[in-house]
């Protein structure tokens, strides 16, 4: 198995904020708060964050290379399993497909993993640095989203070469690239997976408003997610009804779903159905995180800030 997503450097937790509800007011010299300027504002936050993240590029590079080492163990392990079982295919996955799947979940997690996000939010609540989002005309979740996108872009750019190298070395496990529509669906699922990962972890982080200590909760969530997202093994390998239940839940979009799209295991109507469900989950977690944040802030302000 590859390691859970701990090697991507965690965010440093020193970030300012944004506002979804940029209100204008008749009083005083109002500066432009049109949607366009709001977008600009968040774009600039993105850019500033990108500069910050690039300061850690050396860290990224070595972190990425280290990630690949456990892959060798994984390949050997699955070879032993297939040889031991004496079967050509397990739950519809051939040995080559299995290795390809596990390589692809690394790509999924590259988008959907959010190291330090939930913990960072909880820490800002505990240490009171959350105040800056309350004082400045900027919304925390919007701000963190921009910061995270920048973080991801920096990460993907810096780890492109090592990843390309890895896939080149492992090209024997793949039957070339899938066709263009499949590739498009694959990328769409990665981006939606990023959003699910972000808003899910943001929701988890807001638990810090109610409980001061959240590290053990975060550990449980992360470990569980490693399994139920299909990062460890394809969900099809699980006995029914578990496989179907997990495919109904939002977590599969963070690892399993993009990988099986790429392998051509989901097509046509089923693909469309799952993509629509994925959009639904994005909206679900977006609303959830914002609602929790709003109630959390109310509680925070009542109990002393």
């Amino acid at each position, binding site marked *: 198995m590859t390691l859970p997503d701990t090697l991507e450097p965690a965010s440093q937790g020193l970030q300012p904020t944004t506002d979804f509800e940029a209100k204008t007011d008749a009083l005083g010299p109002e500066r432009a708060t049109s949607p366009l300027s709001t977008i600009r504002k968040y774009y600039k936050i993105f850019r*500033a964050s990108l500069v910050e993240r690039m300061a850690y590029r050396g860290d990224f590079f070595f972190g990425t290379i280290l990630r690949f080492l456990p892959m060798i163990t994984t390949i050997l392990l699955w070879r032993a399993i297939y040889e031991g079982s004496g079967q050509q295919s397990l739950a519809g996955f051939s040995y080559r497909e299995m290795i390809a799947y596990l390589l692809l979940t690394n790509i999924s997690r590259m988008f959907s993993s959010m190291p330090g996000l939930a913990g960072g939010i909880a820490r800002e609540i505990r240490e*009171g640095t959350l105040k800056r989002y309350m004082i400045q005309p900027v919304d925390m979740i919007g701000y963190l989203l921009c910061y995270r996108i920048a973080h991801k872009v920096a990460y993907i750019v810096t780890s492109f070469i090592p990843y390309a190298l890895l896939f080149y070395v492992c090209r024997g496990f793949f039957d070339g690239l899938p066709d263009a529509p499949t590739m498009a669906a694959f990328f769409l699922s990665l981006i939606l997976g990023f959003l699910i990962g972000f808003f899910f972890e943001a929701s988890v982080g807001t638990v810090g408003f109610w409980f001061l200590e959240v590290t053990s909760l975060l550990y449980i969530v992360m470990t569980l997610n490693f399994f139920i997202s299909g990062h460890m093994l394809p969900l099809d390998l699980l006995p029914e009804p578990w496989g179907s239940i997990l495919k109904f839940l939002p977590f599969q979009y963070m690892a399993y779903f993009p990988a099986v799209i790429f392998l051509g295991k989901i097509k046509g109507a089923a693909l469309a159905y799952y993509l629509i469900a994925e959009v639904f989950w994005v909206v679900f977690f977006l609303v959830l995180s914002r609602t929790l944040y709003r109630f959390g802030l109310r509680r925070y302000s009542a109990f002393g800030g």
Partner: protein
Amino acid sequence: MAIIEADGLSKTYRVFQKKEGVLGSLQGLFRREYKEVKAVDQVSFKIEPGEMVAFLGPNGAGKTTTLKMLSGLVYPSSGTAKVLGFTPWERRDAFRRRFALVMGQKNQLWWDLPAADSFQLHREIYSIPPAEFKATLDDLTELLGVTKLTRQAVRELSLGERMKMELIAALLHQPQLLLLDEPTIGLDVVAQVAIQKCLRDYHARRGVTMLLTSHYMRDIEALCNRVLVITHGTLVYDGPLSGITAKFGQSKVVRLQFADGTIPEHLERFGEVTQRDGASADLKIERSKVAEVLGTILDQHEVADVSVQDPPLEQVIARVFEEGRKSHDAA
């Protein structure tokens, strides 16, 4: 229109009382006992545009809680406040664009980046037009003498330099109201004076309204002509700094220089002798009796020089705090 109008502001916190030991912790899981703590109790005041006002009070008196209510971080338990015409805890964007809160113990700048990058981010967050931004920034960096330091990573700056950068960040959007919580905490005297000077100059130039808390009397003497004294959540004094002595100083210090070069014996019968130095002595005398006692002394002794002074302000304020504590404990 007043910049700040606080009317009967109160804040009561519910504090969880943990019992001692393991057994106590276990009990706490099931039944929790809370104590109500009145951090701020019926505080009312008004601050007019352009004023520089200081909040004075011992630790835990409610200064920071009041600042938090005025900046919208905390809801009051009762009472109302209007800041710049807004109710602060609604946290409207228009309100947040017009004030700044600087906390000496918290930093807002990005640790690993030059301050200039954080300033850029502020520019975006507050949507400051580029030309205006540049003018304000040049102005402020020059005022604080840090023009050359803005390209250096914040973590490499000294504490004083960092505080200056924090101030610049807070002033970039030209707030109409500046709330400062312990802006000079932990700084050496030179840096303290530099921050004071900056605040004074900036005030003179822009006429911004300022409300600050500080433990350092020097800050307050240097900056504010109006003081709000708060002890145990209650506002006990609102007026000029010098007026504190008039209101709370119950005694005067009389310095006597004796003509014959020695301090006469039994000087203690006139009052407490706080200092002796050669032929001169300081005598602490109750305010109402100064004239009478001084008359007697002048009758009986040859006095070369005499002066009547108020006791040092710090002592008076320490007394006010102390009495606040006693009356609070008694109640």
